[in-house]
């Protein structure tokens, strides 16, 4: 079984992001970049499926600037067998990414495509679903458990108010939620070896996709600063303020 796993290059989750002074975007100059945490969970799940003998090959793919190959290498160090980078300096948006993933899916015919449910930069939560629509593959999103057996994958999904299990025929798409697994640390020897694993590079044009952004960012602002609070004398005053000032009850 072949697994395609998508990894996105994002600002590291430890970095406190700030808007640019002109408010056009988030300032990512000289900021540490990492693999999106949800994508890391996707890689881990693929590697576990391979360790169980379910999967035979894992292909890690990333899209973005040339430096996104670092995130592909990280996936290779974690256990993926080969990498693909779709290189573009455009602001790649979910629809374009889904279209390019579709082109790769057609090329590689994976049995399972695993993606993070969303990336911590855009928080879009769209790419997996769009890929499902474009390829007509069944999808199990927000996975907290994945089991592959007899040409099918059963995905336990975290939904509002509980868990839902869907059983999909392969090939299928899975997007990962936080509780699916706890990703391992790449071992240092594997980081060294990842350099020698193969990586193909394409451009959006190679894949026949127009990656021009469709969504325009109007402005980026920091969240409003929290204002100083006040002390109330008793419960009666609190209730009065909640009712008449905050108007929340």
């Amino acid at each position: 079984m072949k697994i395609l796993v998508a990894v996105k290059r994002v600002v590291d989750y430890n970095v406190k992001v700030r808007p640019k002074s002109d408010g056009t975007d988030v300032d990512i100059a000289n900021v540490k970049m990492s693999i999106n945490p949800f994508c890391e969970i996707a890689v881990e799940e693929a590697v576990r499926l391979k360790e169980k003998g379910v999967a035979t090959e894992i292909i890690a793919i990333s899209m973005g600037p040339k430096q996104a190959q670092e995130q592909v290498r990280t996936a290779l160090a974690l256990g993926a067998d080969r990498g693909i980078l779709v290189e573009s300096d455009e602001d790649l948006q979910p629809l374009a990414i889904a279209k390019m993933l579709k082109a790769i899916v057609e090329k590689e015919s994976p049995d399972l495509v695993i993606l993070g449910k969303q990336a911590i930069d855009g928080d879009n939560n769209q790419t997996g679903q769009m890929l499902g629509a474009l390829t007509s593959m069944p999808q199990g999103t927000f996975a907290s458990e994945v089991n592959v057996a007899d040409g099918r994958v059963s995905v336990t999904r975290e939904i509002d108010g509980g868990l839902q299990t869907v059983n999909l025929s392969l090939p299928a798409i899975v997007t990962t939620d936080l509780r699916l697994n706890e990703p391992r640390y790449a071992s240092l020897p594997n980081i060294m070896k990842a350099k020698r694993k193969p990586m193909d590079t394409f451009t959006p044009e190679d894949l026949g996709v127009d990656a021009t952004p469709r969504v325009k960012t109007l402005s980026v602002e920091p969240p409003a600063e929290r204002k100083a609070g006040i002390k109330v004398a008793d419960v009666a005053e609190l209730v009065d303020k909640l009712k008449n000032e905050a108007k929340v009850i």
Partner: protein
Amino acid sequence: MIRDQETLGQLIDGIARFVRERLVPAEAELAETYNIPESIVQDMRDIGLFGLTIPEAYGGLGLTMEEEVLVAFELGQTSPAFRSLIGTNNGIGSASIVFDGTEAQKQRYLPRYATGELIGSFCLTEPDVGSDAASVKTTAKKDGDHYVINGTKRFITNAPIAGTFTVMARTNPEIKGARGVSAFIVDATSSGVTVGPKDKKMGQAGSHTADVIFDDVRVPAENLIGGKEGEGFITSMKVLDRGRLHISAVSVGIAERLIDDALRFAMERQQFGKPIAEHQMIQAMLADCKTEAYAARCMVLDAARKKDLGQQVATEASCCKLFATEMVGRVADKAVQIHGGSGYIAEYAVERFYRDVRLFRLYEGTSEIQRIVIARNMVKAAS
């Protein structure tokens, strides 16, 4: 020398993350229990921390000196006991075999040091043998195809968990100095080897040292490192520069961690209506710490690069060791001062680091020995 910037970047990122997510949160437990939890030891094995300097051909990473100090900067960001656990396999505990071992010795031990399956410990210091290291009193007498070792070794790092000891013993009592000393690999389970109780130390809780006593320990002659007598001490001196630069880099890492802790404290702690980081005398301490730590970082990197280029760096390594370890002592002192009364309370990491860093001025050559090395080399070069 950095062999591949991108790969090294990933390596450093991986280690930094492991330190931040796994080791730093375990510091308090380590300080309380004097023990590194087994799950963390296993993680350290799994990610390959025991094989940083062991050549790639034997399952290690074969880091260059520059790469090693960059890694040590990161490992310094947490309690030094974690680094101490992997320190001997990456340094004195394996180095004699790496440098001068026979191929059979390398094959037999290095892959197991690299995975951490086996802990290698180094036995040079004795009750009466410290800075005057070449005056080793432990003896090794040839007896057929064995040597019989007798003597007591002191302050042996990782002795309680060691699988092998690299033991410096005098094979030729006629030669008083270094040339009479040979190095042996001694299996810790050999009959006659006794490890004493763990030493109670000022700091570095969780890093264990103990006496190791050799009482008529029979060691096969094939365990004589390099297969030649009289080379042992000379071999061990080859790792000296490397060890000194490594300790210097760890000192820089810890200084940076202390500065980070002190800065964060100073920005949060309010006195006289404003954060103390806005008071000039606190600022002066912060600035002095930053400057010194940066100077030491530059020194260490410069010396490491020179060593990778094949230059002799004995003087530079001693300069680094002297400055970086004294520097981290001053930084730790100021970090406690910035914390005020809180800096004396064990709840804050600076109290612990203040005691931990005291060791750096003592081992791998005291500050006094470093000054002697530097000055003697200066005189020698000029005459």
